[in-house]
């Protein structure tokens, strides 16, 4: 526990750690202000398939909708912010030359690597919670509350979630988002364990995430066949909490697959770190 707090202190003493929080704050504020200014355009794009035939009353563009919209837009960018810290947490010891100093202290390598991993998960969860709080608080202040309308445009489908159900669904969705991001964190952490500098793990993580996302979205049978084997396929399972009915089986399956990925990646990192020959 002491090692964990020590690692947490170290991570939050670095300015790099706050890039993610700053970026999120900036993006959320900018997005919500722009959305407030161009509300009519957003509503037109959102409702155009229905507004021809229905009169639509009430506050559609509310804080909950804005939160879901930002979450949907940022799920590719957040992994980069996570990789910035998770890809640096082990390798930075080698870069700064503190690794030998660290390993001659009483805590075992296993304890050190576990503490670093837990710190990575804390940062990851903290970043997602920060995103949630920023989106929801600012969203509700600027746009007010109301029922949530999820517009699945490619399927020409609208799901209507009553206001009373939204806080629970948001909590579940953000928990699922944090769960998804732990896979990215675990991947960056593994690469950080294997590397001697921080740039490689950060770029390597992002490259893998982007390539997997792209492959998973190609509309060809070959790529469709490999889709189930890419972890990125399951990373957007948080969106399913805004569907009706909530597909619990699919959510459980995705959560399990992502959980197994995280455990697997951490175990490889754990073994690699314990066997690593420290030369610098």
């Amino acid at each position: 526990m002491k090692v964990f707090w020590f690692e947490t202190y170290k991570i939050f003493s670095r300015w790099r750690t706050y890039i993610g929080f700053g970026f999120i704050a900036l993006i959320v504020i900018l997005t919500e202000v722009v959305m407030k200014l161009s509300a009519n355009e957003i509503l037109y794009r959102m409702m155009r398939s229905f507004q021809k035939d229905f009169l639509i009353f009430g506050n559609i563009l509310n804080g909950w909708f804005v939160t879901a919209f930002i979450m949907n837009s940022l799920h590719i960018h957040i992994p980069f912010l996570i990789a910035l810290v998770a890809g640096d947490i082990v390798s930075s010891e080698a870069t700064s030359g503190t690794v030998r100093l660290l390993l001659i202290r009483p805590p075992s390598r296993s304890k050190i690597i576990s503490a670093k991993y837990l710190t990575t998960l804390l940062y990851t969860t903290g970043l997602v919670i920060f995103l949630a709080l920023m989106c929801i608080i600012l969203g509700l202040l600027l746009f007010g509350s109301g029922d949530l309308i999820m517009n699945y445009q490619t399927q020409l489908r609208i799901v209507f979630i009553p206001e009373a159900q939204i806080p629970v669904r948001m909590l579940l969705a953000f928990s699922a988002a944090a769960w998804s991001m732990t896979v990215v964190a675990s991947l960056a952490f593994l690469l950080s364990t294997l590397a001697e500098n921080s740039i490689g793990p950060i770029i390597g993580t992002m490259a893998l995430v982007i390539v997997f996302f792209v492959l998973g979205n190609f509309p060809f049978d070959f790529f469709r066949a490999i889709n189930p084997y890419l972890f990125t396929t399951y990373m957007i399972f948080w969106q399913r909490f805004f569907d009706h009915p909530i597909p619990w089986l699919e959510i459980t399956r995705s959560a399990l697959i992502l959980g197994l990925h995280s455990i697997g990646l951490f175990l490889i990192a754990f073994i690699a770190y314990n066997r690593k020959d420290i030369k610098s």
Partner: protein
Amino acid sequence: MTAILLLFSTEWIQAQEEVTRTLDAIEKKYSGLRDYVVDVRVHFDMESLNAPDMQAKLYYKAPDKMKVESKKIFFFPKEGGYFNPSLFKKKDFEVNLLEHLTYEGRKSVKLKLIPKEANRYHQIFIVTIDVERNLIREIEISPSDVRKIKTTIEYGTFDHVDLPTHIELQLDMSPSDPNEIKDFPPFGQRAKRITGKVEITYSNYKVNSDLGDEIFKDSEFYQPK
């Protein structure tokens, strides 16, 4: 030849007289209706709109003012969703008698209404009217492949006025206008049609309570520019 022409023109004149009588009778029947307020409950049975039942209060004032008051988000069909007896005024349409029929055991007629001013109404209406009670029972809007809406209306009597208690709309619509520039659907996907059923139940009518015009000043519904 002249006899055949004469016969046809006599039939045509008789049909036109019947059409005029039918629409006049409806106009006369509802001439005393100045306004109404009613509670509306909308139930959607549509694959593309997954929503719980929605409730609102609807205000109508003759000839064509309408307002919906709802604390929550409320979707309401633009056409056929609320009862407006002055919708089918004889002067606005070229009317043709399509057939005589029996609708729920009552003598009825089916009329085709073609708008004279294309700017006001964009579509052709096919209307089934119960001529015994002078009630519009069915409205079919724009019978084409692009867009079909069929409205069936059931009535109750409130303060001596027959007003809808239940309206059912059958929808089958293309997601976009044929003249609209469309976004291409994602690769390998065909644009789905919006189909399904909307059921609207009306209750707690307050008829002719002299609603002021100020009630209708602020329209709360979202209308894109």
